[in-house]
């Protein structure tokens, strides 16, 4: 049975952004299907993180449009934007956990900030969410600095999903982790996204991770989306740029700018 044509959860059209005279996004067009995982691939400095930060409202784009559920987010008032952010979770590359707060307050930060629960309830809720990412309730009383890199990533994942968002962004979720811990994090991401029925957008360089967590994939190169397709086909897409990137080959259309 064919799926009915529906509005993409996120739609980017002609997104442009420059920093000084450096053009970072040169007309990004991208559709992300509701309830699916989209993986955005691309080399360092290709504009992946800037794209995500534009969607999150952390960086204002110079031009183009961003629609979420068919609504233009760039024209939203501050209050509307804040209401939209309530439905969004974000896992930052380095975790970005708040050093001054214990783990349980980090996990339930959004719920406490919005006064949706009391501090006593937050402790219980944090223990519940920490269990979902494979951490013991006692971890909640530790400071972020006392955790290993893998545990910090899991706490950051718990924080991203604690308020049950319907859109979740993952910025390089497995960077800096060993392959086994990377696979564990990917598994947790797939589990929580499926449980929430959320739409996920992930940025990664890790092809194994991309295949595990993505339904769809898109490749960004020189500020433009040059390919979109099923994540499972990465490496055999027929697109020379994507295949070179996916296989990590030196020779191909992508030439690193190296000084000799």
């Amino acid at each position, binding site marked *: 049975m064919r799926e009915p044509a529906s509005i993409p959860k996120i739609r980017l059209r002609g997104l442009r952004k420059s920093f000084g005279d450096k053009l970072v996004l040169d007309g990004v067009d991208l559709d992300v299907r509701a309830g699916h995982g989209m993986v955005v691939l691309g080399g360092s400095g290709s504009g992946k993180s800037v794209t995500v930060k534009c969607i*999150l409202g952390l960086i204002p784009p110079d031009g183009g449009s961003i629609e979420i559920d068919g609504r233009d987010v760039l024209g939203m008032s501050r209050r509307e934007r804040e209401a939209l952010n309530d439905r969004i979770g974000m896992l930052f590359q380095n975790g970005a956990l708040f050093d001054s707060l214990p783990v349980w307050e980090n996990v339930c*930060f959004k719920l406490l*900030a919005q006064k949706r629960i009391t501090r006593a309830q937050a402790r219980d809720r944090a223990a519940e969410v920490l269990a979902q990412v494979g951490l013991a309730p006692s971890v909640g009383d530790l400071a972020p600095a006392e955790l290993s890199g893998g545990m910090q990533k899991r706490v950051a994942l718990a924080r991203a999903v604690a308020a049950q968002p319907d859109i979740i962004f993952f910025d390089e979720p497995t960077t800096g982790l060993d392959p086994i811990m990377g696979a564990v994090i990917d598994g947790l991401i797939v589990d929580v996204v499926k449980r929430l029925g959320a739409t996920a957008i992930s940025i990664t360089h890790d092809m194994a991770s991309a295949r595990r967590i993505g339904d769809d994939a898109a490749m960004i190169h020189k500020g433009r989306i040059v390919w979109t397709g099923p994540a499972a086909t990465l490496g055999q897409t027929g697109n020379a740029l994507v295949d070179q990137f996916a296989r990590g080959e030196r020779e191909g259309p992508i030439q690193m700018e190296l000084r000799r």
Partner: protein
Amino acid sequence: MLDLVAALGRAVLGLCRTVGAVAIFALEGLSHLVRPPFYGRLFLRHLLEIAYFSLPVVALTAVFTGMVLALQSFTGFARFNAQGAIASVVVISITRELGPVIGSLMVAGRIGAAFAAEIGTMRVTDQIDALSTLSTNPMKYLVAPRLLAGLVALPFLVLVADILGVMGGWLIGTVKLGFVSAAYLKATFDFMQAMDVVSGLAKAAVFGFVIALMGCWCGYNSRGGAQGVGAATTAAVVVSSILILATDYVLTEAFFAR
């Protein structure tokens, strides 16, 4: 010659831009003090950090300043046979100027640097962006409670500095310089006016705001990793120290110029 003028013009324009940006930053921070939600717990934490944990450094500085002032005044005034004015010189100098200025400079070194380092680290590790994604306005969460804490804490610290500074002068006056304790204290209280203390406390509130503002501003706008945070910390202390002395002159003109 034209290059020199162009460079000077660029510097002036850059300064104007920065002053405008700091003013907008301050106004936005203050506006969050009257708009919910309020972060009372954070305000109390910063108040404790400034008012309580700065007490030892401010107290020691004030005591020694009062002692030095009494000693210097005695040796200087002896040339004019005016040693009897020491108690009044100590109390007016401490309450009007030295208490607020030296106390605030000490706090600028301690708190301005701490604010800039903490917020700067949050900036370069994406924690400020994380706040935004967690439905929390960083200006409301990070800046507004610190501004209010600076504004409230400094008058308290300066009041303590005033008392201890005068006591330092009294200690040297009675133990070393041979003044009778009761006479020294009587001269102190007879000469001191309410305006001396009130103007000092008002200055302290302004200095506290300046310290918190510059700490937050420098940290919030830091860039480039550890080096950027270090630069922000240095800038916060240097700029707030200069601004304390500059606003001290302006406030002194406002309070006492005839």
